[in-house]
């Protein structure tokens, strides 16, 4: 009898919960139905099953933890790797009218941090950085509140097989146990076989339900254009933008380029353009983002600082003026196009001189042997009290000329592996590790390059990299399958609207605060 009744008893409340989930979907999020595999993911989570979900960018990942937050009791804790991403995600909840959401990261001052920790019980969502969650004071506070869902966003950061590796992610499994092993949801957009394996292994998700969707975005076409040099690339870019539909994003390698291209495009085409990079004031970045989201810009020239968490559905074209160092990163960036389901275009401009950039970027992730030796000796002699002096250590190493990633690498190696071992051995370990990782990244880079020079179908090639086969080829697949810039011509260019900005302060103030100035009664 028991065996027969059990599923019944279990099923009924779950069905009720799914009915409730539908209701929340309509009322809170304003959607009429689930997309992709969202229903299955939410259903599994409500059944208290761990989930590993891979959905392409724009596939509606966030909803998978947002929605259960309104049904399960307790705090939804979201580990997120990037400050800007965290704020964007928190903002997208605030836009739904949610005010029980906070972020916890190194940007908060100690008082603010204390305040957030003291109000954990009143919160529904907490976004937290992997460094912050490791701090004893923070994890002690978290241990005291019921956690309904432990979300690991951008879970590919746990794997060293990629340029976004974040060592702090490796401690998440252990932290999750300390928090009473709440249900875990690991999310990522793109992960190849190695990365998938790492996610399962390091997060202990062996028995989790897996929902792994294809990375293919059939409505985005791929075109690669070869150029002689930067000048030629700029000319081709201008010519391209003069023909295809807006709005568009141009990815380039650095701040100077983003500013230069923005200037060139606006001068030569008269388009409304702006640039966006990590060196700008946060308020300026936010203004540019708002302008882009509200359709006041035709083209945005940016570094890879722009994009994570950006949700603009009608981006028609993504151009890479410089290419990233992995296929993973490329697909992430390209995936921001055409989320509305319409046609999207991805163009990569390539010139031989570009091939130097990604290698330099990879090398900047690691310390040089001499810096490594110096730093390890200093750590060994107790010059720094860890983890208290971590930031000071990182500053010192940066002044010596290494990047922040390189400094964090040394720190992580020392903390996890030193415990009484001679520092010379540790040095050898590190050198070996660097060689290994570097060779993996060089392989990723080689893969990216071979995709650029691919003679066959680009979609097939890209999918095979992620261990997938192409099932149906879209009409406008890629340049190798016959797609041309001419297939994406715009019909709207003659009606270019360049007079949008209201300059007159009186009219602006009127529109903003919607009050007529009342003349005093005579």
């Amino acid at each position: 009898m028991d065996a027969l009744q059990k599923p019944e008893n279990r099923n009924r409340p779950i069905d009720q919960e799914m009915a409730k989930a539908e209701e929340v979907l309509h009322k809170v999020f304003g959607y009429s139905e689930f997309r992709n595999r969202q229903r299955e993911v939410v259903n599994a989570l409500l059944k208290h099953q761990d989930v590993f979900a891979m959905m392409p960018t724009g596939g509606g990942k966030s909803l998978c933890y947002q929605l259960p937050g309104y049904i399960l009791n307790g705090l939804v804790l979201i580990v997120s790797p990037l400050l800007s991403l965290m704020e964007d995600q928190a903002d997208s909840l605030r836009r739904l009218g949610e005010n029980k959401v906070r972020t916890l990261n190194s940007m908060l001052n100690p008082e603010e941090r204390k305040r957030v920790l003291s109000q954990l019980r009143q919160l529904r969502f907490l976004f937290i950085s992997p460094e912050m969650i490791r701090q004893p004071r923070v994890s002690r506070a978290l241990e005291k509140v019921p956690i309904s869902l432990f979300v690991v966003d951008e879970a590919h950061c746990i794997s060293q097989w990629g340029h976004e590796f974040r060592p702090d992610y490796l401690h998440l499994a252990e932290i999750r146990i300390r928090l009473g092993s709440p249900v875990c949801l690991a999310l990522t957009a793109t992960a190849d076989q190695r990365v998938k394996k790492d996610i399962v292994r390091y997060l202990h998700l062996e028995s989790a339900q897996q929902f792994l969707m294809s990375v293919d975005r059939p409505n985005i076409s791929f075109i690669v254009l070869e150029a002689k040099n930067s000048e030629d690339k700029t000319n081709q870019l201008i010519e391209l933008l003069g023909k295809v539909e807006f709005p568009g994003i141009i990815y380039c390698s650095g701040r100077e380029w983003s500013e230069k291209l923005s200037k060139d495009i606006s001068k030569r085409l008269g388009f409304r353009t702006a640039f966006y990079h990590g060196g700008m004031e946060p308020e300026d970045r936010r203004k540019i983002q708002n302008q882009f989201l509200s359709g006041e810009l035709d083209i945005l020239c940016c570094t890879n600082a722009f994009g994570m968490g950006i949700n603009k559905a009608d981006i028609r074209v993504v151009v890479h003026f410089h290419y990233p160092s992995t296929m993973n990163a490329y697909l992430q960036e390209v995936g921001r196009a055409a989320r509305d389901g319409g046609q999207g275009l991805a163009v990569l401009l390539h010139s031989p001189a570009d091939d130097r950039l990604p290698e330099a970027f990879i090398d900047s992730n690691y310390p040089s042997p001499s810096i490594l030796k110096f730093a390890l000796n200093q750590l060994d002699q107790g010059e720094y009290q860890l983890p208290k002096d971590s930031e000071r250590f990182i500053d010192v190493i940066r002044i010596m000329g290494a990047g922040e990633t390189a400094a964090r690498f040394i720190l992580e190696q020392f903390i996890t592996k030193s415990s009484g071992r001679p520092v010379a051995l540790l040095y050898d370990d590190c050198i070996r590790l660097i060689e290994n990782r570097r060779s993996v990244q060089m392989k990723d880079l080689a893969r990216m390059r071979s995709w650029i020079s691919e003679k066959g179908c680009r979609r097939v090639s890209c999918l095979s990299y992620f261990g997938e086969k192409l099932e149906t080829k879209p009409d406008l697949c890629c340049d190798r399958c016959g797609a041309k810039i001419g297939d994406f011509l715009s019909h709207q260019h003659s009606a270019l609207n360049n007079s949008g900005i209201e300059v007159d302060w009186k009219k602006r103030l009127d529109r903003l605060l919607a009050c007529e100035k009342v003349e005093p009664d005579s």
Partner: protein
Amino acid sequence: MSFRYYLMLKLISQINGERTLSGIIHILQGRQSVQAIQDCAFFHIQPLYHTFDMLERGHLLSLSDDCLGKGWISQLNGDHEKYALTPSGIDTLSQLADRHSFPQDLKYTENVRMETDFWLKLQLCVQTLSELIHGSHSFLPVSHRAGITEAVRRFIIGSRARRKDLACALYEELYSLLETMPVTEADILCLQLSGYGMPGLTVDQTGSAVKIDTYQSHVFSKAAIRRLLHTVSNIPSDFPTLARLMSKKRNDLSRSAEETYHLIKEGLTFEKLTEQRQLSHGTIEDHIIELTLKIPGFNISSFLPDSVNQMIIKSATRLHTKQLKPIKKELRDQASYFQIRLALAKEAVEREGN
């Protein structure tokens, strides 16, 4: 685009090779060092203090390279970080001065420490009210800084007025303030404001929107903010809404200097001060300079005998410099560096007062 050259040439002409380019950049960025504050007084460029707090060092460096390339400025012998105008630079500056000047309102620097926060709060406040009165609850706030969002939240929630009335009050106050400003300043200020269906511009973008040099738009924007703050803090009763967005005015002194000030008023000697405060001589000296610059009528006679003071001033006038070393040399070490700094600071303050 010529305003930027006017700015750079004017600065270099005022400083005349007595400070490095970095020293000039610190003034424009508004460093809180005693050196930067003192230099402003020395070289009569207080209005420009903190006018480019948001500008990257690299932009100013390439601006000076630009001027160097045009042959308007040249490096001083033996110090490639110090510049002076060349004859063609002097010519160019006098031509540029016919067309350009710095806006009057820049001189209101008395609230300089709060101008950045006040402006961020005002922008977030206008945006939030604008969205709310249009029935929109979902928007990306222009600022994320914890202190700013907290203050605006308190401002809106803590007000008993309805949102619509609060927005109207803010509108009225802003309108009457902007009406008294030069139109371009008012336009540049409002172009930066965001709200419902109307994202704000960055200061750089306002430059191209009203077709002026971006450096000029920075200066206009600052001038407008300073006039706003100046008027509101002088007659808060006329602008009750904006006055609530201002931080409580604290003494402009650093906390540590303030403690030292209290002890000086109790009559402690220099030696006793270092003992009591457990601070180095250098730090106490910095405090005394800061007090001299910021407290009107601060009495320095116990640190600097009048005879020494006069000797220093005479020497500085004769040598036509504000650099410490040559003065010390000429006085054959009869005065310490600290005494020379103090004398120059006092003199600068007094000249300002006249």
